[in-house]
């Protein structure tokens, strides 16, 4: 019973981080770190909430989030790819741009309500004991999220486009020599990454909190960036990491609901500590090799 509730809670609270982590992974695999992921999540969350509030359509809300997230990410892409500015500085600036903009533009949406994205149980599968409640009694975006890790794995390792993306991340000059524009590939990867982070933000407000408040993501975007690094740039491990984070968040609340005492300060810290610990253990022994172009970012931060 506890295990089932915690796992269901894991999926509920981990999905938004999962989208952001997979988005960041695509961006980094093409050679661009986007610390602006938090800003993209917030932008997506507000865009989704505002459009759903206006149109009563969660689908249009998600579409708006995709556009808004890609747009904000394109600012980062322009600054670091076209202007060749430092990726870490630009990413942070984009994050705080997203936070400031959404706090300002979103002030009037704090008191508004939406028709949320409802639970859509999958027929037959949702009735399976244990597995049903954990995996098949969620909203549509959660199902997309569950499939995202494997899909991105297939894309990266089993498609030609994925190969080009990885090649660009390893060595832009080689990709260029083979006739592919690293600039174009990176622009697209960063924008897809921002769009996915924005869908994470949209899932958070449309299906989970059902509300917009300033800084509603509370650092989930930064957690996502850390997850990608600790997951060794592997999409399946990133999925695992996102759910470990969600699980830690759910576990402490589920334990409290059962009368176990936990300090609220420890409780605030637990998801981060546990996620770090498990990913460090999970990645032990294997060489954690970042894409070459990412290594260059850390190596020459003055660029």
């Amino acid at each position, binding site marked *: 019973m506890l295990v089932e509730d915690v796992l269901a809670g894991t999926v509920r609270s981990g999905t938004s981080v999962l989208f952001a982590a997979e988005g960041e992974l695509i961006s980094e695999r093409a050679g661009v770190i986007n610390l602006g992921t938090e800003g993209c999540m917030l932008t997506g969350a507000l865009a989704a909430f505002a459009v759903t509030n206006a149109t009563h359509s969660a689908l249009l809300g998600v579409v708006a989030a995709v556009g808004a997230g890609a747009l904000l990410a394109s600012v980062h892409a322009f600054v670091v790819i076209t202007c060749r500015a430092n990726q870490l500085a630009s990413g942070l600036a984009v994050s705080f741009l997203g936070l400031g903009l959404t706090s300002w533009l979103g002030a009037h949406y704090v008191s508004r309500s939406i028709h949320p994205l409802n639970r859509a149980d999958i027929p037959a599968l949702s009735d399976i004991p244990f597995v049903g409640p954990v995996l098949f009694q969620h909203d549509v975006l959660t199902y997309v999220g569950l499939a995202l890790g494997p899909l991105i794995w297939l894309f990266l390792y089993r498609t030609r486009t994925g190969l080009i993306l990885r090649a660009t991340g390893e060595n832009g000059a080689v990709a260029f020599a083979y006739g592919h524009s690293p600039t174009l590939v990176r622009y697209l990867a960063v924008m897809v990454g921002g769009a996915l982070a924005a869908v994470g933000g949209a899932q958070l407000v449309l299906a989970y909190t059902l509300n917009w408040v300033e*800084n509603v993501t509370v650092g989930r975007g930064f957690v996502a960036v850390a997850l990608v690094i600790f997951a060794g740039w592997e999409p399946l491990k990133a999925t695992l990491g996102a759910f470990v984070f969600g699980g830690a968040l759910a576990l402490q609340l589920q334990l409290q609901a059962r009368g176990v005492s936990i300090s609220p300060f420890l409780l605030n810290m637990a998801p981060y500590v546990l996620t770090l610990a498990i990913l460090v253990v999970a990645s032990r022994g294997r060489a954690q090799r970042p894409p070459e172009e990412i290594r260059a970012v850390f190596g020459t931060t003055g660029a």
Partner: protein
Amino acid sequence: MGATSMSASLGKSSRWLLALACMTACAVAAGCGGSSNSATSSKAKGHETIGFLYVGPHNDYGYNQAAYQGSLAVKKAFPAAKVLEAENVPETAEAERVMEKMIRDGATILFPTSFGHLGPAMNVARRHPNVTFLHMGGLKNGPNLGTYFGTIYDTQYAVGQAAGMATKSDKLGYVVAFPIAQTLLNINAFERGAQSVNPKAKTSVVFTGSWCDPGKQAEATNSLIDQRVDVLEQHQDCTKTVVQTAERRGVLSTGYHADASGLAPKGWLTGSEWNWGPLMVRMVRTVEDGKFKASPYAGLYRVGVPSGVIKLAPYGAAATPAIRKQVTATYDRLKTGWVPFEGPIRDQSGKLRVRAGVTPNRHQLESTDYLVQGVVGKIPGGA
């Protein structure tokens, strides 16, 4: 929105923006703060500048919205006064900065409205003896700083009765921010109210560790509902997520801070509400008349249901005629000044905390550091 309001609504991020974007103007303004004792005490009556600080947004369906409604009443009662407002002011040195800025802009009366604004307000009050500080909910005062609060646990007893009568599983849930005396009192009153009509009713408590983190609120609510809780109560600054999550999962909710019946057309029972306006207007008038130091507002001022500061929210669809009858009767009794904490009261360990026949006074109640029998869940860290 004035300039103060704008800069403060970006408050949380402004430190970062400062570092990142070098907002020189702001840096200079903050840098030359010092202790500029503004010569504003000679303002004509009714033309004061009054500052309000909120820890969250003014439209949060909760604590801050209730305080903001109070500021509107002040504006209406003193049309010639200038009212400054700052939202999202964190409970840190940032609050001191905002208060200093308001004083430089001429404020002579300040309303820091969050529990954690007290420390910063005490510091600023020492530097500006001519400015009057009226802090909401504080447990300390100073020569020019008084605190006021409503005994909202009174109505929480009546709300607990509604929950106790409505529950089918005998399991009630309470989503709480932090374990402080205010929140513990509300939980205790709620559970005692529930027990008074349903001896089997138990209240499970979950602490989120934040005044407004909708992500945690959602998971806390879901966790409680997973435990077959079928009536949700909360003590959070922003209240929408808990009410709407409960409604979505088909369970009932009671409210706190503000009327949220519109958010739960099916599951809303009733709730406790603030009505700060009349009290805030009275306090401003007292300060204007130069009578603050001799008034009760200079101390730890507490008011209850009889004063009208605390109200019962409208009943919702889930409140049956029997529930309405019982809760209204209790509410009428509260209006006469009755305090729903008559002994005997035992804590969770069974220890007798209030002897039979005794009712603790307001200040004894405000030092509550235990949960009563029937509450499931521990006070974290023994706070």
